[in-house]
């Protein structure tokens, strides 16, 4: 390819070596940013995963929807509006107090989640999905958790990506048409790659901060933090298991140190092969949180978005493996 010529070392550099290498670095960055949209499978996976988990939350809380986001909520729409006046949030749910309006909004929110997951007219749907995620989150901030917070952020970032290019209804339709080119495609590529970079940076900031804040706590330092976590009544669905683990002091200490270490190391390892060590450890950690603390969707959102660091060849390999497996007989 013609563009690749530019990164090969020139036969006789006329400029001083330092300047030449800085220039090459710039050329290389420019090429990577503009050549093609990167990690299309990863962003598609994030689209499907976040859409799915958003739906799981809405369907899980369906019987309690009035109490959390609707007309019966102790955090009334009027209170939410007062909070928006202070903080500037927005939610479609607070635009009217009519119970019928709430039901329509809730149904629309579910529909948007489904369409986003399927990748139907993804650019428009992704904007609607971000609005839906923000609306659900901000309608009752005091009942939203860190997983919801991350889902909102990723939803906003995904608007700028070409996350509908793979594993989507859009992809099926596009296969029947000639690919578009030119300035429009160039802009889509640049936006996508920049947003991808932001998502990666966001995950690094998340884990880096979570790790560094823990370093400041003495219970993480002396390895007893998980003891206090296991004793929280609202986060011990299996009291016998929690009590058993609580007795294993050495194990808990190792888990404490490993948690902090992995979180602090996250930003430094995900851009190298070390990610194949760190990511499975994080999956194990979140699996533990999901089961032992009864926080399945929170954990799933965290793990899911870690997958932005997996290369496209991993996703292609995974897709091939799944497809090759014979269908289970019902």
């Amino acid at each position, binding site marked *: 390819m013609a563009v690749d010529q530019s990164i090969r070392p020139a036969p006789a550099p006329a400029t001083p070596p330092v300047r030449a290498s800085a220039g090459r670095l710039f050329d290389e960055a420019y090429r990577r940013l503009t050549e093609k949209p990167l990690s299309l499978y990863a962003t598609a996976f994030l689209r499907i995963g976040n859409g799915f988990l958003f739906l799981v939350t809405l369907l899980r809380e369906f019987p309690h929807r009035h109490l959390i986001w609707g007309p019966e909520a102790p*955090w009334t729409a009027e209170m939410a509006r007062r909070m928006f006046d202070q903080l500037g949030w927005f939610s479609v749910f607070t635009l009217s107090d009519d119970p019928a309006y709430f039901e329509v909004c809730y149904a629309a929110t579910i529909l948007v989640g489904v369409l986003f997951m399927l990748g139907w007219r993804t650019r428009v749907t992704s904007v609607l999905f971000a609005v839906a995620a*923000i609306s659900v989150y901000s309608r009752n901030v005091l009942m939203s958790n860190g997983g919801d917070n991350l889902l909102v952020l990723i939803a906003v970032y995904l608007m700028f990506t070409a996350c509908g290019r793979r594993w989507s209804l859009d992809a099926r339709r596009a296969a029947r048409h000639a690919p578009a080119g030119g300035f429009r495609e160039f802009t889509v590529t640049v936006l996508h790659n920049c947003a991808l970079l932001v998502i990666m940076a966001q995950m690094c*900031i998340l884990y880096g*901060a979570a790790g560094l804040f823990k370093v400041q706590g003495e219970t993480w330092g002396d390895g007893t933090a998980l*003891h206090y976590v296991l004793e929280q009544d*609202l986060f011990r669905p299996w009291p016998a298991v929690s009590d058993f683990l609580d007795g294993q002091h050495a194990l808990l200490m190792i888990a404490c140190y490993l948690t902090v270490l992995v979180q602090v190391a996250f930003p430094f390892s995900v851009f190298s092969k070390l990610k194949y060590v760190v990511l499975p450890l994080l999956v194990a950690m979140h699996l533990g949180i999901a089961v032992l603390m009864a926080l399945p969707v929170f954990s799933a959102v965290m793990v899911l978005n870690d997958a932005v660091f997996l290369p496209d060849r991993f996703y292609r390999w995974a897709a091939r493996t799944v497809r090759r497996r014979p269908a289970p007989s019902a």
Partner: protein
Amino acid sequence: MRQRYGEQGEKPQRVLRGAVVGLCAAAALTHVLMTFLHVAPSNPISERYRAQINAWISPYFEQNWLLFAPNPEPIRTQIFGRTGWTDAAGRRETGDWVDLTAADNAAVTHNVYPSRTNQAMLHRAWNAYAEAHGEDEVSVDEYSLLRAENLRNIATRRLAELSPQPFQVIRLRVVATPILPPGETTPTDENKPYTRLLPWWNVTSDGS
């Protein structure tokens, strides 16, 4: 021949493409930098540009990653409520203290995926209230007012489900029991349960 930025095409096209790249890259880097400064502990740069950082981050890029940091809550919280009403003869009556936390704990036990109405609603409402209120229980600003109102509405709703008759006032009592360090079984003077009694709040039993 060495390719220039924007590869093939006319000069205006090249300039336009360069501008797109510059704008997108600048926006992305600014966002990452702002997010970092917002999340990082207070430092000379973030103090100087506090207003700009907040304007960029708040509200949609809010970051809340204090997951069990710096320390997990070292206490177990139990919230009790009681109702009060005036009877036909004009006498003031009060109901018994009811444990409002018990139902939440029971709903979480042996549940793979509890509802947030049990896992978060009352507990988070109390924490939010406690963050915004001193022991004088006075709401000093809109934040603390909203949080007090939220806690009152949740408690009213729950008490209404349990109370045999209509009531006009409610009162909350919150018992914080320190979780003992691992291996210790006998509480010392320092980690005895601590009780906080809130004032009577005017409510109506239908929750409004």
